[in-house]
């Protein structure tokens, strides 16, 4: 090849490559990659989120969204470590217990104006009782995409095998209260299987016991969050009943026993209805979903909430807010409703929920989901929750032994946590 040919071919190659490189640069500049941290690694959940993200891509072809599942147990720790390390996600799920920390911190982008400006969003449709926890000074900082009542899943195969009464039988007889629920659990527990498991409690996440103690009318602290409630008579009564159920009646597995209801072999579990997706498809058992039993203080419901917010400091914060508005618009809220009970009033009816929750019967939706959401109190939360959680956990540890003095332990809980609450 002559020198000229060399030059020619080099020029030709440059002619092809340079525009390509240029378009690559231009494309890379416009491309926006949003990252949302979530605590569910459930494939069905991820498929639905990816579907919503694809829908957003139709109008925003340069935006792609990655959903990053983090382990539930260490979710908030991992999230704040990412923030501290200068690598925050663009969007994140937030637990109700830490809502106060995130909403008050100023870390999240305000949403109300952006949602109101989105065509067809119908912000008025979103239940104010659902957004209360996530609102500060009239601004919404995270959208409560899931307001999920705590309920009891029962394994009727296991319960019937021991001759105990199933929750459905107790409900039919008008006897669905904690005395009888514990009695059924005790019969199962004494047969060698696990009676009643409070899911995710594990003798660490004591706040999940709210699903029981609310039946006694108990709360860990006063409504303003300043005064300890563990020594109140209602709490002492509830904790005494729980302690007896664990250590005397064997109605609940003791500390250090890790048991999963959805693997079968367990009588009942208290968890949120969004866990219905864990029900086994192979070797299914005869399951039922019932509301929490009545306690000495009457009937009650407890809900867990999850919010999703966009971080204000991120370079892509405006796009992230835009995606959030898309993800929670009426149409996509309906998709979300198949796993996460919605905050929109228009979706909170038996018809809509039945079409999105094929697993649940009309009765279950009416009695558990709709009744629970409309009357439920949210799981306890507090500013600086992590430290309060650990402090209470450390003091409560002495309750989880057979010969514990319940009132004395609860007094020690208040002694150690009172200074943190008063702060």
């Amino acid at each position, binding site marked *: 090849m002559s020198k000229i040919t060399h030059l020619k071919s080099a020029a030709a190659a440059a002619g092809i490559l340079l525009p390509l490189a240029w378009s690559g640069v231009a494309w890379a500049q416009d491309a926006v990659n949003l990252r949302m941290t979530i605590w569910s690694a459930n494939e069905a959940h991820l498929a639905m989120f990816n579907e919503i993200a694809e829908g957003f891509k139709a109008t925003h072809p340069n935006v792609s969204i990655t959903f990053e599942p983090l382990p539930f147990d260490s979710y908030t720790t991992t999230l*704040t470590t990412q923030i501290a390390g200068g690598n925050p996600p663009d969007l994140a799920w937030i637990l109700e217990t830490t809502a106060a920390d995130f909403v008050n911190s100023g870390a999240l982008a305000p949403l109300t104006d952006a949602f109101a400006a989105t065509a067809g969003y119908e912000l008025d449709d979103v239940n104010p009782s659902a957004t209360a926890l996530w609102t500060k000074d009239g601004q919404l900082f995270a959208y409560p995409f899931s307001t999920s009542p705590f309920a009891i899943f029962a394994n009727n195969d296991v319960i019937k095998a021991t001759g105990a009464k199933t929750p459905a039988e107790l409900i039919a007889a008008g006897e669905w209260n904690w005395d009888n629920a514990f009695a059924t659990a005790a019969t199962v527990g004494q047969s060698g299987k696990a009676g009643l498991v409070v899911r995710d409690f594990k003798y660490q996440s004591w706040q999940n016991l709210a699903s029981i103690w609310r039946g006694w009318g108990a709360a860990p602290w006063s409504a303003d969050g300043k005064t300890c409630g563990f020594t109140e008579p209602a709490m002492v009564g509830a904790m005494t009943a729980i302690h007896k159920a664990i250590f005397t009646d064997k109605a609940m597995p003791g*500390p*250090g026993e890790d048991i999963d209801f959805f693997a079968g072999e367990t009588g009942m579990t208290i968890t949120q209805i969004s866990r219905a997706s864990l029900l086994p498809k192979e070797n299914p058992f005869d399951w039922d979903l019932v509301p929490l039993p009545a306690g000495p203080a009457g009937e009650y419901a407890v809900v867990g909430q999850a919010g999703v917010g966009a971080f204000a400091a991120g370079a892509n914060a405006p796009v992230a807010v835009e995606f959030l508005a898309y993800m929670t618009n009426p149409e996509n809220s309906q998709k979300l409703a198949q796993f996460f009970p919605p905050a929109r009033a228009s979706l909170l009816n038996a018809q809509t929920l039945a079409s999105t929750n094929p697993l649940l019967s009309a009765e279950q939706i009416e009695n558990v989901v709709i009744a629970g959401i409309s009357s439920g109190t949210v799981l306890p939360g507090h500013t600086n929750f992590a430290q309060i959680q650990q402090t209470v956990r450390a003091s409560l540890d002495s309750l989880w032994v057979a010969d514990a003095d319940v009132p004395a332990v609860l007094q020690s809980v208040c002694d150690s946590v009172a200074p943190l609450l008063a702060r």
Partner: protein
Amino acid sequence: MTAAADSPPRKRPFWTIERRDAAAGYVFIAPQLIGIVTFVLIPLGLVFWYSLHEWNVLANTFNFVGSANYQMLLNDKALPQVLLSSAIFSAGLVVLNMSLALLLAVLLDQKLKGIVVFRTLFFSPVVVSLVAWTIVWSFLLQNNGGINGMLQMIGVEGPNWLRHPSTAMLSVVVVQVFKNVGLNMILFLAALQGVPKELYEAARVDGAGRFKQFRRITLPLISPTILLTSIITIVGSLQVFAQIAVLTQGGPGMSTTVLVYYLYQQAFQFHFFGYGSTLSILLFVIVAVLTFAQWQLRKRIVFYEN
């Protein structure tokens, strides 16, 4: 123009032999130096800097507070309990680990058929992933787990190992000892094999028994290794984290909340990064003082050192 007279004096070349040697030396240590500066010295400086600040991660505020975090350290009511737990853990670990390692080393320092198999067996936990090792133990130590199952077979009702303050600490110590005893054992074994055999012969001729031989010959001659392993073990014991995080999360109560775990809670769970940094400065000082003290002790205890 006479070139020779006007030309400037000949410049000494920049790359003299000394400079070239020095440059080569710096190039050789550069990888190590860069690593230490990037991963040790700069973070150390930053931690000290953070400890003078109140850093709210969520609100993204970073305010200079001077010695406020150090005041908090002095007034922290939980800290004495945390330091006590750390001391109990370290003491338990050092005593158990060193004595077991030495015992195993003496037993394995024999010329027997198949002894290599035993040496490998005892060393193998060292190369197992720490978290995997600990998770397996967490299943064994559960109330209805493997250990209590075995105890039940011989008619003993085992305690709920990880839920009682005393047995929880014991469990964490033993899990850590079994994990790392092999490393100290190998070091002791190497030291034992370095002791000249004729010394034992001479001692036997002089009428020394087995125990006296061990005390008068073996111990002094392996004392440099004892010093080394004790420093490694104590420093390592102060850094225990994964075992606590997996097995007990610092509980029950605060009984297994050692300093590193407490530091983790303050910084990463409660988001008090400033105070967490102050605690790590405290940890740094404790490790430095202990290591210095042991190094000083070597003059009085360790044989062969000048």
